[in-house]
């Protein structure tokens, strides 16, 4: 596309961001890797020593790890399922001729702009609190026993909170995609005698597939590292019922000061994320071409 001079310039211009990101990835990762082979506790400084794979052995044989792993996948999978399915339904709804569509959109997108600490606190105290929460009042109003959501269904509650934050995002992206659907195509299908369901599965869904891919990609990036919602609501508990990998590493490092163990956990989390990333990137690379 251009001259050698231009190409050389271009290399120079990408260099800063590549170097920064490389540094950001590799330096801390290398340190984490190093720590993960050490016995290193912040409470007993000066006692660091090389212990090989022991940290990994402990971390991987800790039931908390497997639970955190399952919880991580549950959060990603659960929120994705809710937001993608819900997003398609809501996008179809918003695509109908409705009055005041602008305001409806504004109301719906709002949760996306709410910082995680706020939404977690609001849900925890004002809705899910078993004494003073609105849900408790609702339960009492219909004569049922109030549920202590965060104690009884901690993971589900967190999924609900996170899904509330991401549903608007999915809805709006899918709505944008829906509105770019060629109306002549739809009319042609109608002329061909396609019913509503046939139109949905043969025209609408394929048309939305790119947008759905984007939604899945972006949400996964953020959902793999859900943190504030857990910190603020359940602190990972009860037990490890709502601990994900990110939170587990955090609590080992900054609450139990076990740098070695936490580092091993961090490395495991990175490996997992890479597996997911490779998979997702394949998918994205194909659709975004």
């Amino acid at each position, binding site marked *: *596309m*251009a*001259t*050698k*001079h231009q190409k050389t310039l271009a290399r120079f211009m990408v260099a800063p961001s590549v170097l920064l990101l490389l540094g950001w990835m590799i330096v801390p990762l290398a340190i984490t890797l190093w720590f993960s082979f050490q016995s290193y506790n912040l409470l007993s400084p000066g006692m660091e020593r090389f212990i090989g794979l022991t940290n990994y052995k402990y971390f991987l044989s800790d039931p908390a790890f497997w639970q955190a792993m399952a919880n991580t996948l549950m959060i990603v999978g659960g929120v994705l399922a809710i937001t993608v399915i819900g997003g398609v339904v809501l996008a179809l709804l918003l695509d109908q001729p409705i009055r005041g569509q602008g305001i409806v959109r504004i109301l719906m997108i709002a949760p996306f702009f709410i910082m995680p600490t706020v939404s977690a606190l609001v849900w925890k105290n004002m809705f899910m609190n078993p004494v003073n929460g609105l849900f408790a009042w609702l339960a009492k109003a219909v004569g049922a026993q109030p549920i202590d959501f965060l104690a009884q269904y901690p993971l589900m509650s967190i999924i609900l909170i996170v899904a509330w934050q991401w549903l608007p995002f999915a809805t709006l992206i899918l709505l944008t995609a829906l509105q770019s659907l060629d109306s002549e195509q739809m009319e042609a299908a109608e002329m061909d005698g396609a019913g509503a369901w046939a139109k949905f599965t043969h025209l609408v869904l394929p048309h939305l597939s790119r947008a759905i891919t984007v939604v899945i990609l972006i949400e996964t990036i953020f959902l793999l590292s859900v943190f504030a919602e857990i910190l603020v609501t359940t602190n990972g508990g009860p037990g490890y019922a709502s601990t994900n990998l990110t939170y587990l590493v955090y609590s080992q490092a900054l609450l139990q000061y076990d740098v070695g163990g936490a580092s091993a956990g961090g490395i495991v989390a990175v490996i997992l994320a890479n597996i997911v990333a490779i998979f997702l990137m394949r998918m994205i690379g194909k659709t975004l071409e």
Partner: protein
Amino acid sequence: MGSITLKQVRKAFGEVEVIPGVDLDINDGEFVVFVGPSGCGKSTLLRLIAGLEDVSSGTILIDGQDMTEAAPVKRKLAMVFQSYALYPHMSVRKNIAFPLKMAGMPADEQARRVGHAAGILNLTDYLDRKPGQLSGGQRQRVAIGRAIVREPVAFLFDEPLSNLDAALRVNMRVEISELHKKLATTMIYVTHDQVEAMTMADKIVVLRAGRVEQVGSPLDLYRRPANRFVAGFIGSPNMNFLEGEAAAKLNAHAIGVRPEHFQLSTTDGMLAGTVGVAEHLGSDTFLHVTLDGGTHVVARASGEFPVDHGDRIWLTPAEGRIYRFDQQGLAL
């Protein structure tokens, strides 16, 4: 001041050799047109001259100086792009002044030159509009204006009229020709419209697959095409080619006759055939004829010629207007 010389200029994109090696001399003040089928490398050649692409090997001289490695601006050439490539966020005035601003010219000199260019191009009333508020023809003129103000040693045009409608195209064609007369600056003009090529050029360069097939004045190419490709490419409708017996009689592998060089008769002549489609335009009549041997030819009669589908017709090539080609397609 604007002679351009290409010596063995070669260009490959990766493995693909787009221009295998071109030698070309363009004299100062000439209007040179590059023609050739789509994808033959016209734009690439122009961009090599402009310095927007590197040559893979070879030398480009501008005014005798080696500019092969020089940055575009050093070559003092101006280019008009097919899409006009105007800066959409700048007014017409700023668009035209942009190269001057980049050259660090004082503001009053910039204003003088912009005013002058706008006068030449009838843009004075539009100077404060944005490109988006202009018609296609006006945009084209702004693009030309931006090229003029720099007082380049040569102008490069890449299919500048192809986005305009037919009527406007004729007008702009004349305007550009007049501009060339006025400025007497070298112009290199890429097109695949052969009417543009024939009417505007001092010199036509016919390209095929990155090779120069022939260089010459429009009538040179019309009268003495070097080979079958050029013969078929220049002239409209295209030249008719006959092979076999008719050609063998003239000691050639193939012979070519232009549609306008047939004498038509409804009674007798050299080649007999049946009229397929007859296009009566009033000023001309174009007949699509199937000769008895099965070959299809097109013949033109000037004025009206009263035949219709299915009629018998006889064609006789005009004296001295038969082109003969050998096995390789070279003119004999």
